[in-house]
Every structure is written in structure tokens, then in C-alpha cells.
């Protein structure tokens, strides 16, 4: 089975000394795990990567820190509620994500580019597509992974609040209802933020630039919308306040949950959209999620190929 070196000798005529050796390569005939397995692996790897698991210690710091920062206020509220024997939690389940939106935005901004920009920068995307997965699988796996990571980030403090509320012997039915409403709201928020973050991040191979772009879109729109709402409220045109909320992701979620999920709106003046207006909010939110999925599909149609 040894390879014979015939080169370097006094150049014999072609054909009389060159030989092909069978060096024993065998083709793989074991089980093939297929497309759905590859997609599941990509999903679980991306989800773990969003919290730095399976990556270096340095890249664990930020996501874990943000996770802790997200949960600590919930723990403090629970401790206060238990200690003072309060009748109700100091903060609604649905309001929690709105209050902590800076942390959520930072998480999306840091992890969305981590998830997709590095694949673009190191040109590993063609390698993924040389496996049995297709564009849709890649997009779905990344989308689902970031949305799940965000859901974990936003649902964990709600769970802390819920468990704490039960420990403090608050009304079970009331708390369960609030908890369920909170979960629906953060699920919508996770999908929306993951979609927006991934679309922006997938257009740049530079991680730093992706982070800045995502945070700019999330915070500047919120800053602009809340400023305009405050001005509209002061000017007495209160009916315009909900409509302005359509133009930034977090106020969009706020609108949906105050229309359908029994939340009190964080809009100035406390006037959230009515049910009819809430339908528009819900449609816009779902439309944005669908649009970001569509944009991602378009983006990865011919990337690196």
C-alpha cells in the first residue's frame, strides 16, 4: 500500500512508469443523518453560541452578564414582595420587558452579529451549504436560535417573578393569567427583535459595525417615537399617541400587549391603542417578522456562492 515516488528521476517518457495505486480509501456507507439533523445541529449550536456556551470564556462574559442583569431586578422585586407581604407585584409581567428594553436591545445587538456576521466574514456560509441543508434551513435555524435565546432572556425573569409571587401567596389564578400574558408578549418580542437584528447583521461581515447598526435602529427609533409621543401628549393631540407607537419595535409590542394582553400602556398619558387599533399593531408586528424572514431568505439566496 505504499506510495511509490517515481518523480525526480531522470524524466522518463510519460506513460511507461506512472501508475495509479489503490491506497485504500473507502466510501462512507454508515447511516446518513440528513437534512433535519443538520438543521437541528445548527439550531442548537447557534442557541448555545448565543450564551457563549462552547465558545471562549471571554465571549461568555457579556451574554451571561446581561442575563444576570435581566434577572436581578425580578429577584429584588420578589424579595421585596415576600418581605413586605404585598398584595401585588410591584411591576406587571407584561411591563417587565418594556422597562428592561435597554438590556434586551444590547443582547440582540451583541448576539445577532455574533450569530451571522462571523459566518460571512470567515466565509463559512458556503461550507454550510455544502452540507445537505438549504437556504431556508440555515435561515430558520439561525432565526429560531436567536428568537429562542431572546425568549430565554426575557422569560427567565418572568419565571422568577411568577415563582416568587406564588411563594408570597399572591392570588394563584390572577398571577397565572398575568404570567401567561407576559409569556405571549415576550414571545412576540423575541421573534420581532430576532428578525430585525438578524436582517441588519446579515448585511455586514463586520461584527462591530453590525452591533452599532442594530442598536442604532432599536434605540434611535424608540427615542424618536417616545419623544414624538411626549410632544403629542403635551400638545393635547392624545389620539395620535398610539399611532406614533407603530414606528418602533418596542412600542409596537407595547401596543399589542396593551390592546390584547391586559397590559397598561407605557405610552405617555397611559393611553394604549384600542382593540381595533391593536389589530393594526398586531398586523404590523407579524408583518415585520414575516418581512425579516423574507429578507433573510433573499439575502442568503446567493451568499458566498
Amino acid at each position: 500500500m505504499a506510495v511509490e515516488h517515481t518523480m525526480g528521476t531522470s524524466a522518463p517518457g510519460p506513460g511507461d512508469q506512472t501508475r495509479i495505486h489503490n491506497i485504500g480509501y473507502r466510501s462512507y456507507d454508515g447511516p446518513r443523518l440528513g437534512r433535519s439533523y443538520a438543521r437541528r445541529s445548527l439550531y442548537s449550536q447557534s442557541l448555545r453560541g448565543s450564551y457563549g456556551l462552547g465558545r471562549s470564556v471571554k465571549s461568555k462574559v457579556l451574554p451571561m452578564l446581561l442575563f444576570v442583569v435581566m434577572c436581578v431586578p425580578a429577584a429584588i422585586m420578589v424579595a421585596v414582595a415576600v418581605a413586605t407581604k404585598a398584595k401585588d407585584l410591584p411591576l406587571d409581567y407584561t411591563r417587565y420587558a418594556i422597562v428592561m428594553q435597554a438590556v434586551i436591545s444590547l443582547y440582540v445587538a451583541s448576539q445577532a452579529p455574533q450569530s451571522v456576521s462571523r459566518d460571512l466574514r470567515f466565509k463559512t456560509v458556503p461550507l454550510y451549504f455544502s452540507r445537505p441543508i438549504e437556504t431556508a434551513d440555515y435561515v430558520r435555524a439561525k432565526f429560531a436560535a436567536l428568537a429562542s435565546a431572546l425568549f430565554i432572556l426575557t422569560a427567565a425573569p418572568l419565571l422568577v417573578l411568577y415563582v416568587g409571587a406564588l411563594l408570597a401567596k399572591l392570588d394563584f389564578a390572577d398571577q397565572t393569567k398575568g404570567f401567561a400574558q407576559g409569556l405571549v408578549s415576550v414571545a412576540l418580542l423575541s421573534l420581532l427583535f430576532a428578525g430585525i437584528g438578524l436582517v441588519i447583521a446579515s448585511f455586514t461581515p463586520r461584527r462591530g459595525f453590525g452591533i452599532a447598526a442594530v442598536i442604532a435602529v432599536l434605540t434611535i427609533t424608540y427615542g424618536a417615537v417616545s419623544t414624538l409621543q411626549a410632544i403629542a401628549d403635551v400638545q393635547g393631540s392624545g389620539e395620535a399617541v398610539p399611532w406614533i407607537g407603530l414606528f418602533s419595535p418596542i412600542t409596537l409590542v407595547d401596543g399589542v400587549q396593551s390592546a390584547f394582553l391586559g397590559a397598561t400602556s407605557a405610552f405617555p398619558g397611559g393611553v394604549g391603542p384600542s382593540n381595533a387599533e391593536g389589530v393594526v399593531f398586531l398586523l404590523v408586528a407579524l408583518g415585520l417578522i414575516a418581512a425579516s424572514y423574507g429578507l433573510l431568505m433573499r439575502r442568503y439566496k446567493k451568499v458566498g456562492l
Partner: protein
Amino acid sequence: MYDPTVARLTYRALLGRRRALILGALPLLLIAISVVVRFLAGADDQTAADLLGGLALATMVPIIGVIAGTGAIGPEIDDGSVVYLLSKPIKRPTIIFTKLIVAIAVTMVFSAVPTLIAGFILNGNGQQVAVAYTVAALVASIAYAALFLLLGTVSRHAVVFGLVYALVWEALFGSLVPGARTLSVQQWSLAVAQKVSGGDLVTSDVGLTTAAVLLVAVTVLATWYAGQKLRSLTLAGEE
């Protein structure tokens, strides 16, 4: 201390391709919002001060500062091409100083100029609000650019840390813990703006002397330390 070639390269890195789009989009948004507000609410000094203070100075200036400050050096260190720059016979502090000048210029152009325009649209510079906030944006640009340029040389995650400072520390902690406001570039620049406007629309929690001393100290120290960091820079692989 100023090297035109380094400056040219940095300008190109900062404003080339899509980067200029996001830098240009933010000021355009600010101006568009001011036009809308002017139509909705008319000229009102308090509204103008709220909008310029809340949106322009609190959100737009730090974000543009982060993009320009870290963008001036971060990507080069990140992809390793900074070694070609460092191997040239130029002093490291000169490189930092040049990049700082460029970052300051870019931040000023994209934040202070639109602030002035927006101020004039909002209330035609009534009670000196537009000029005061423009001065604040100019001053803040210098400090932010120096601070975030230093971050770019210190950490590979400079953008995240810069944003954490700008959004979590200045916005969140600053509103909850009054003491955090003393250590905030935004408040320092507001102190200068307060002096300029002289009215009670622009207020700061920090005295003018403290603010000026801290501003100068932060800028000088950050620039000096960034130069030191660049002198002993080691290039590490990606994570």
C-alpha cells in the same frame, strides 16, 4: 503630531461604503423629526429643548461617537491590518492623535451640525437653545471620540462596551442614581451648554468648573493611554 496619510486612510475607513449611510441616516432622521414636530407643535422653546436634549444629545451624539471613535481604529486591529500601519516609521501617539482628530471631526460633522439645523428648524434658536445644544454636542464629540478611541485599542468588544456606557450608564443609571450623573460626558457637556444659553431651559447637574476639568482630563488621559496601548499592542487571533 498630525499625519495626513493616516488621516486620509481613516476618513476612508470611516465614511467608505455603508458606514456613511448609517452615519448620515441618523442626522437625517433628527432633522425629519424636527420638521414634523415644528408642523405639529409650532415653535416652542421647551419642546425644542426636550427634543434636542433627549434625542440629539442623549442618543444620537453617543451612538455616532461610538461608531466614529471605535470605527477609527477597531476594525484595523480586528482584522490585523494595523500591523502595516504600525510598521511604518510613524510614532504611535501620532497615529492615535491623527485618528482622534478624524474621529472628532466626523462626530462633530454628523452630530453637531444636524443639531444646529434641527434647533433652527424647531424654534429658530429661541433662547439660544439651538446654539447651546450645538456647543454641548461639539464638546461631547471631543470627549466621546477620545473615550471610544481608547476603548477601541483596549478591547475587541469596544462597540459593546461603548454602547453599554452610553446607554446603560448615562441613560439608565443616570436617571436612577443621581451620583452617576457626575461621571457622565453628557452632563459635562450640558454644563458648558448651560453657560452658553444662560437661560433655565438647559440645565446640568455638574458645575461648570468640574465639568471643564473632567472633560479636559478625560480627553487628554484617554488619548495618552490609547497611545501607550498602541505602543505595546499585541495582535491576538479571533477569540
